[in-house]
């Protein structure tokens, strides 16, 4: 027999139809016998009726749809959402818009140099030097074996070179340290993660473009995933203070990799190649989904309550390992998002990073307070909701 306290504790859930069948039957039976609880149930019913009568002073008008449509079309023409979704404007309009934008930018650039002959002269000189340098580099490369480039660093990794490979010139050692300190422990557990900044990714991109001009098989649609793969390779190498050699393979998974450069001569083809849905956004989405699962699991886990028992350590070890993996992935995707100028992806990855770092740096037997502080920050930042919406 259900008591009144039990009944009142679940009466709203029962009213909302959210109790399980067994509880529902018990509440229902109790309500038929108890006037007090039945009155509470009636109050809920009356309130619901009252709120059902609530009418808002709003109406969906055709003008609202027109406003949405116009905004989408405007943004499409500005190219703001070109990379995020198909457009509600026709292809000719988009092309015309693109041509207009390129024309406007060129005009602006030329206008900048018009009143400054000295600046224009300096730029011309720089261009000539760059051209001569590129020519010299091209000649030098022709004399080297096409498949391999010797490395002068013992830390350098090379992927197996079964497929025709192209070596990318050693990248400048532009690295940054990501330092993580566990302040709550008092002891400083620093995790040095060497990663490349955007300039490295851009260099990689530029190198590929240069090789494309020389006739090496590359297509634009493969750029994003390759950059990501390359960036991931950089991070897996670990600390590097000297040059690193990337070895690129003819990708089997990229169906466009076999397209010959001759097929990409026309601008239209390039546009088509780029329009092939790449997995860039999908990768971010999958990453975000995995991170969301991890954070939910962490949020619901009861760590630090049983001390450093074997089970608790084992549980947190799993979360930590997964967090580290996701952290590596996160860094790679951040670089990719920068190079693709994908601000929304960059934003969500930035928001996610501190939580992955926090979990990755937890001790094996974290205290309840350490876990609670992370959970509290997750709650305040609404990180799970942010990931979900993304």
């Amino acid at each position, binding site marked *: 027999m259900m008591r009144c306290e039990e009944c009142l504790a679940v009466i*709203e*859930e029962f009213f*909302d139809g*959210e109790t399980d069948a067994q509880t529902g039957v018990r509440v229902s039976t109790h309500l038929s016998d108890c006037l007090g609880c039945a009155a509470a149930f009636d*109050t*809920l019913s*009356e*309130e*619901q009726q*009252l*709120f059902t*009568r*609530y*009418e*808002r*002073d*709003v109406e*969906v008008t055709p003008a*609202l*749809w027109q*406003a*949405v*449509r116009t*905004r*989408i079309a405007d*943004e499409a023409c500005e190219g703001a*959402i070109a990379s*995020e*979704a*198909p*457009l*509600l404007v026709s292809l000719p309009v988009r092309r015309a818009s693109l041509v207009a934008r390129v024309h406007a930018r060129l005009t602006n650039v030329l206008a900048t140099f018009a009143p400054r002959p000295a600046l224009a002269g300096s730029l011309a000189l720089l261009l000539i030097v760059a051209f001569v340098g590129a020519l010299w580099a091209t000649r030098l490369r022709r004399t080297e074996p096409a498949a391999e480039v010797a490395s002068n660093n013992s830390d350098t990794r090379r992927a197996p070179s079964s497929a025709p490979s192209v070596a990318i010139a050693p990248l400048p050692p532009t690295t940054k340290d990501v330092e993580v300190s566990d302040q709550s422990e008092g002891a400083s557990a620093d995790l040095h993660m060497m990663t490349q900044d955007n300039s490295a990714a851009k260099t990689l991109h530029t190198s590929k473009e240069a090789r494309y001009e020389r006739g090496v098989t590359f297509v634009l649609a493969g750029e994003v995933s390759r950059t990501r793969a390359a960036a991931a390779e950089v991070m897996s190498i670990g600390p590097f203070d000297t040059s690193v050699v990337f070895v690129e393979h003819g990708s089997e998974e990229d169906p466009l990799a076999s397209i010959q450069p001759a097929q990409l001569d026309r601008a239209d083809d390039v546009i088509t190649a780029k329009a092939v*849905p790449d997995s860039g*956004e*999908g990768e*971010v*989405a999958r990453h975000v*989904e995995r991170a969301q699962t991890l954070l939910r699991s962490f*949020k*619901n886990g009861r760590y630090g309550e049983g001390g450093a028992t074997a089970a608790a350590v084992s549980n947190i070890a799993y979360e930590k390992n997964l967090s580290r993996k996701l952290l590596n992935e996160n860094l790679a995707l951040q670089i990719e998002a920068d190079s693709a100028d994908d601000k*929304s992806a960059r934003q969500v990855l930035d928001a996610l990073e501190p939580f992955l770092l926090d979990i990755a740096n937890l001790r094996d037997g974290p205290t309840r307070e350490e876990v609670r502080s992370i959970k509290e920050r997750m709650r305040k930042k*609404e990180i*799970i*909701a*942010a990931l*979900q*919406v*993304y």
Partner: protein
Amino acid sequence: MRQLVAEMAEAGAPRHTAVLLNSAGELVARARTGDEDAFRLIFERYARPVLSFIYDMVGERCAAEELTQETFVRAYRSLAILRDETKLSTWLFGIAKNVAREQLRVRTRDGAHISADEEGVACALRDGARSPAGQLLDKELNGIIRAALLKLDEDKRIVFTLRVLQGHSYEEIAEITGFSVGKLKTDLHRARAEMRRRVGHYLGENQ
């Protein structure tokens, strides 16, 4: 089904027929390819509940309309990354919630504050002055409920609106808000108690 569609077409409801014939998944798939009609159908299907929800959150018609626009524009931009098309509704409400919250934060930062009581009562009186006597109570009640809603804190207002006014399940609310079911039950219970305190005296009068 065909008969139903034929009957509806005869009744002059072609637009609703189209809505019936398109699942959320199909509409999303079509909208992703740039099909304007598909996105318009999504808009028509969800605009009203989204607009109502935002209005309950921000309490101003103009702001609610602008934020509804923003919600659907953002949804369009992000259609490509919607993973489970069957959850289009909760996904849209999630965006709407974020958009409304951003607006509320801007207001808080700028020092603008909706005076719920003043606005609610003013609205009730204004509407009441134009209304026939028989509608006065309902109009006044709308103003009072709206004012009471705006006095709830954000989390409680979201949960109360989604459950009591929009009829979403706990699971859906958890998906939209990212709250745990425990938290939303607590918030909902407190929100109901607060609302009861503010509009309770209408319970007897409006039977």
